[in-house]
């Protein structure tokens, strides 16, 4: 094993790969995500020794084994709780939570809610493939209504949860979305997530080639993508379409977005909304967009504040007192029995 030192040469993406054989299905979107994470790590030259990947259970949860950092593959849905404990023990560690739609929004939904509202400084990466892969294809909490699966042969009856809407509702202060195949976009989003102090939530639309193949094709397909996606950027107008000829604007007199085409009915560039990633209400609108609207990609919301574990330690510093056990044990009324 090699010792990492400051004098090490620049680390390449491959230096963030462990010696373990990657065991996802051939063609799985997880490969692309692994590549993007390793690339982001290399571009940021993250310190492997101080980095911990924590996961729960599921296909996505195998992730830590493939990184050359510290890694903890834990219990289904509970990675946010374990990651919180790690940060409370050592706030200096750089901790990532790798989760899936079942792990993070079903069995671990409660922990996801609380880790986001607490704002623990973590990168939480949710691989959304709208299916349970490791258990062979049951519908998940993000599956669209009507999904036929081994457990719903007649089609699922439940309405899906939107990961980003949930995260915003839980009080997350960094919410972003990307796609496994949008490699350079994904790397950029991951770098933003890591730079954010506090809980950063990233939903990645990820294709399960075996149990739910092409479920995002209507959004991510080459032909469909320009009209089905809107890539948002802070300070830039919300434009999309092959020639950026379409945009989003507020319906006059209503709290509602509509798609307009520049030049049609007198629509000009001035009518188009400009993305403000610190605007929570706008983020909620963007996160909720679904076909026939374009799906919003990029950093939907970023509004940092002090993270939970930093505040815990700041508050702890205020509680001064002598750290002498003998003083503590004798703090209240005592009496002496003479020999």
């Amino acid at each position, binding site marked *: *094993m*090699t*010792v*990492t*030192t400051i004098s090490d040469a620049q680390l390449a993406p491959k230096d963030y790969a462990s010696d*373990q054989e990657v065991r996802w299905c051939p063609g799985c979107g997880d490969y692309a995500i692994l590549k993007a994470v390793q690339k982001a790590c290399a571009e940021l030259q993250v310190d*492997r*020794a*101080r980095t*911990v990947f*924590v*996961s729960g*259970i599921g296909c996505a949860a195998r992730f*830590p*084994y493939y*990184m*050359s*950092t*510290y*890694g*903890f*593959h*834990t*219990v289904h849905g*509970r990675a*946010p*709780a*374990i*990651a*919180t*404990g*790690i940060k*409370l*023990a*050592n706030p*200096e560690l750089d901790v990532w939570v790798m989760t899936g739609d079942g792990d993070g929004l079903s069995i671990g939904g*409660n*922990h996801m*809610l*609380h880790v986001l509202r607490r704002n623990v400084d973590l990168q939480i990466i949710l691989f959304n493939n709208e299916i349970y892969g490791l258990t062979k294809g049951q519908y998940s909490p993000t599956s669209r209504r009507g999904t036929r699966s081994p457990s719903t042969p007649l089609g699922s009856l439940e309405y899906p949860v939107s990961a980003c809407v949930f995260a915003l509702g839980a009080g997350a202060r960094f919410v972003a979305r990307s796609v496994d195949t949008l490699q350079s976009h994904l790397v950029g989003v991951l770098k933003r997530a890591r730079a954010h102090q506090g809980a950063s939530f990233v939903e990645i639309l990820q294709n399960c080639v075996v149990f739910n193949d092409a479920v995002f094709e209507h959004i991510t397909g080459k032909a469909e993508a320009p009209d089905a996606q809107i890539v948002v950027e802070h300070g830039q107008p919300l434009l999309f379409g092959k020639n950026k000829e379409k945009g989003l604007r507020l319906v006059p007199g209503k709290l509602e977005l509509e798609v307009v085409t520049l030049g049609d009915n007198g629509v000009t560039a001035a009518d188009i909304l400009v993305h403000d990633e610190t605007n929570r209400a706008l983020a909620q609108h963007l996160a909720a967009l679904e076909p026939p609207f374009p799906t919003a990609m990029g950093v939907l919301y970023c509004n940092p504040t002090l993270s939970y574990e930093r505040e*815990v330690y700041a*508050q*702890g510093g205020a*509680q*001064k*007192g002598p*750290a002498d*056990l*003998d003083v*503590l*044990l*004798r703090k*209240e*009324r*005592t*009496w*002496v*029995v*003479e*020999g």
Partner: protein
Amino acid sequence: MASSTLPSSPGREIRDSVVIRFAGDSGDGMQVTGTQFMLETALAGNDLSTFPDFPAEIRAPAGTTFGVSAFQIQFGAVDVMTPGDEVDVLVAMNPAALTVELKDLRVGGTIIVDSAAFNERNLGKAGYAKNPLDDDSLAPYQLLKFDITKLTADAVKPHGLSSREAHLCRNMWALGLLLWMYGRERTATVEWLKQKFAKKPQIADANIAALNAGHAFGETAEMPEHLVGYVVPKAHVRPGRYRTVSGTEALAWGLVAGMRAAGIEKLVFAGYPITPASALLHTLATMRQYGVVTFQAEDEIAASGAALGAAYAGALGVTSSSGPGIALKTEMLGLAIATELPLIVIDSQRAGPSTGMPTKTEQSDLFQAVHGRNADAPLAVIAAATATDCFDVAIEAVRIATKFMTPVIVLSDGYLAHAAEPWRIPVEADLPRFPIAYRTDPEGFHPFLRDPRTLARPWVRPGTPGLEHRIGGLEKDYDSGHISYDPDNHARMTEARADKIAGIARDIPLQTATLGEEHGALALVGWGSTFGPIHQAVRIAREEGRDVAHIHVRYMSPFPRNLGDLLKRYDRILVPEMNHGQLVRLLRAEYLIPAEGLSKVTGKPFKVTEVLDAIRGTKA
């Protein structure tokens, strides 16, 4: 304040030990009354043992039987090991308290009541058709009825309280009277009141006035002929500095002492509110300057997860709950076992199953602690015997967890959590030390490389360069720590996990008899908080000439390595426990001995007589 009457007054009778029970409505302040009486009694040099017994409802409807809150204390010149079987003095602040608590009062015992509380309304709520103060139903006892309501109101009048506020001072009047009866000081109580009501000096002064009035009532000519003062001589105890301590406080401090003994910088305690375990979270939450970080998690599972995450990061990870919450932590315990991380889990047991009786004590989580997980999942379990023992047990839990890289479950219970007793305060320099060493050397490292002696794997703090590695709940290869589904490897790892825990037996003291010979006709084998009543019963039985010994087991998993041999040297084994027979079954299974059980599952601790009757019944 004026100095109180010292117990040298003529006319005071001498008592070796006394049992008092303060009982009233949950809003009557019986727990603080009892606690203050305890403190004054400890300061007077008596040995003592307490039993707070309160309802699950925070404020049950006033005057109802299910809203009765009680605090029992036994104190004396002798070695006091239990809160007492029979009550000598019952203070009943209302009819409900009288009807609920009377059954434990000995014939000839004293009842002190607030006669004003025995009005038609309260009598009706308590189910009395007639006022028991007016007929001869209480004739077997010495009844002392005072209009405590009015006497209190008169005493606090100068302080301008509302009638409701004045009513709330009744408990201090009763306390004052009891302090007079047993020749106790009031200084500590006066100081406590001043501190508690520092921002409301008017309330503090009124309570002090009530306290003094109750005291003066005993001393003055108003004293009725039955009201006698007593002298309880000081107990003969080891010289040293003492204080009173509850099991919860002792656990909290023991955890911190253990962390320091191990040389660990940080203790991360993650809990979720649950009766009767929450007090541990509250206690530790005030101890930041000792390196303690507390975390109130969103649920029991997250609490155990955060504690395990902290252990993974190199801190002392501690989580705590009661039975139902421990059940939720079960899966995380499996992960702690699989990843071989030190994790302390405190279980303050209560009556169950399910929600059961949250404020009532039981020892019924022994099976859950020792065996209650999926698959072959061994870990260490140790149990605290007394409130003060909680301190030592917590330190021992840290020692075992860090030396053997294993989760350790500490069994306490609802009784121990709240019970208090005098404690000879240790000096930190005299405590055991067992410094741990985190692995930092990359040479030849893999995460499941075992210490050949303890079979423990190395503890590596993330952040350590060169030791980056991955662990998890999947089975790993014995020789590399990588994921492995190899059948023979799984068998080998299962053995290794079992051997590691079994090997702890070589690292703990041999089992001895706490009282009596290490062979003979009968041994009483107990564990946990039944220590007091069993010990006392065996002591009495031995004074009667019976051949009986007391064996108290602290290490529940693994058992001390000589326990089986020791038990086989007795003709009979009787196992009193507050469950339906758990230790007795473990002993039978482990040692193939015909141990017999003695169960008590009423939510209350054993009485000495209950154990004594069983000894006598077995013709020891």
